């Protein structure tokens, strides 16, 4: 409005950025947004909670308020640092933080911007809508990973050396756990990105899935449990899950042979199918769907 400006270099590039290029730019735009969204409070809780619990445990141990042994749900367990760490990986991260983060972020990849009525700015730019979804999904993955994984590492160093555990001996387990959690974040995120694109009230659907469907179906014998994510994740778990209790992993391995638990290969393939299939379907839906913004 001041002096007539020089027009910027003409950006008319008829072919436009590639799908991947668009994904990268959307990722770039969304990452900071996501990290500082109002969900940060929630994130801090999810990520800081286990660390706080680990600190409390250290304190309890240093004050000698600890029995090096006990029962969990009637099963005897020799409790040492690695066992507590396994417990926390299962109880906190795998069955709580990761699905919840997947639901909260996955369902709101697009919904957040629709609710804030800012989606218009992204959908009136020369990027495929699918790239918007995938870029935001990647931003979620990196954002959640950057918060969850360091928290796991902190917990590992706080908890594993307790009660005679060895950091060195537990290190391979840590690597496996980190990989497992990253995979979990990817799978739940993709699944709930699809749910978010599919349903009008995705959050309730998501909560019903992780807290209603998964825990119930996973214990039902037969093929039903193949429709859960945790079934496939179990195939990758280095720690015995609570269902397996203090009984040895020998039994676990035999159960695996009997297909009560999937093998790591089946688990990985199943998870890959969920991630790729979920994202592909979600992309399709987003490309075709109209978003009528409330005024």
């Amino acid at each position: 409005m001041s002096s007539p400006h020089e027009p910027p270099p003409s950006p008319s590039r008829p072919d436009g950025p590639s799908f991947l290029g668009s994904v990268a730019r959307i990722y770039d735009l969304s990452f900071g947004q996501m990290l500082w969204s109002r969900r940060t409070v929630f994130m801090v809780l999810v990520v800081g909670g286990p660390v706080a619990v680990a600190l409390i445990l250290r304190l309890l141990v240093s004050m000698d308020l600890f029995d090096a042994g006990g029962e969990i749900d009637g099963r005897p367990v020799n409790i040492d640092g690695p066992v507590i760490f396994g417990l926390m990986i299962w109880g906190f991260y795998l069955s709580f933080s990761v699905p919840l983060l997947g639901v909260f972020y996955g369902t709101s990849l697009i919904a957040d911007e629709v609710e804030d009525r800012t989606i218009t700015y992204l959908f009136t730019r020369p990027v495929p809508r699918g790239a918007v979804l995938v870029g935001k999904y990647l931003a979620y993955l990196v954002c959640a990973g950057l918060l969850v994984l360091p928290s796991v590492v902190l917990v590992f160093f706080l908890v594993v050396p307790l009660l005679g555990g060895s950091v060195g001996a537990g290190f391979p387990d840590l690597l496996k756990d980190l990989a497992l959690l990253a995979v979990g974040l990817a799978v739940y995120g993709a699944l709930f990105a699809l749910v978010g694109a599919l349903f009008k009230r995705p959050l309730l659907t998501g909560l019903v899935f992780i807290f209603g469907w998964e825990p119930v179906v996973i214990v039902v014998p037969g093929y039903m449990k193949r429709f859960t994510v945790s079934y496939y994740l179990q195939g990758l778990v280095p720690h015995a899950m609570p269902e397996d209790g203090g009984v040895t992993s020998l039994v676990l391995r035999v159960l695996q042979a009997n297909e009560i638990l999937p093998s790591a290969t089946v688990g990985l393939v199943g998870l890959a199918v969920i991630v790729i299939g979920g994202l592909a379907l979600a992309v399709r839906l987003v490309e075709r769907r109209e978003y009528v913004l409330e005024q």
Partner: protein
Amino acid sequence: MMASMSRRTRYVALASGGVLAVGLCGGLVAYLNRDAAPGAASDALAELAFVPPHATALAFADVRAVMASELRERVRRIAPDGVGREQLERQLGLDIERDIDRVLVFWAPEPDAAAAEEDGSSGLALFRGRLDAERLEAVARRGGAEVTEEDGLRIVTREIEGAGALAMAFLEPGLVAVGELAAVRSAARRGPGGDGIDADADMMRLLGRVDDRSSFWAVGRFGDSGLLGWVPEQVSERLPPVAAFAVQGRINGGVSVSLAVEGRDDAAAQNLRDVVRGFVALAQLQTLGNPDLQAILDSLQTGGDGTAVTLSLRVPAEAIDFLLSMLASGEAS
């Protein structure tokens, strides 16, 4: 890509990446140094370096866990004196209960007849714990043992009537080998750097079946030169054709045990499974009306496929009380 991040975002990304990197590096260093670390007491596999590749049976016990368990308390209540404990303490100055963290015992018959003659026997027990070499030597001397030095290795020996020489030596700080003199010498020669059992793929596969956190475990195989040579022929003929076994357990109030057996082939395994099922059914008949024993049998699970047969059970604390009381009354009568 990072260029458009705000400074705040960059700090968070750097901080969290930093925590991750430092943690992973620290963990890796700890992992690589875990053998060298003097306090790496919980690493069960460090002693395996002293086990020769041809070993046919290994057994391990996490003494500290067992001693700290409720089960031990119960046993102590019924049988106050540890069997053999005093003897070891008197002769070699070892107090199992206080000094030992864990024990690894192996059996490795020499395949080579000449070597066998030289070495005599090939079983050895390795004790890991808070052990003071000077104190042990002093105690052992008082008990009548002799101390000799061979290639920088101090060996405490004591003749035992009818059983040859019992020897003890520190293979490394905190690790004592006890066994016949020849076996101790052989283990010391092998050292932690040489070809250990980890060179034996067959055995390592068996060991892989064992959970690191078991309170005790034992594995063994019945090769041509294995246990079958040691078991009397009449017995081995009647045994089902078993190739290998792994047993392991956890102790607390009760005991959880699981046993895996590998048959020589699928048919043998099927045969074994049938035998086990028959046994279970028989046992169930026998224990009708006894809720404690019934509970044990209820927890008993059998399974396996291919050449494997598995069996797991949990003996709850009450049942142990019952069993111990039966034992005690049996001794009394």
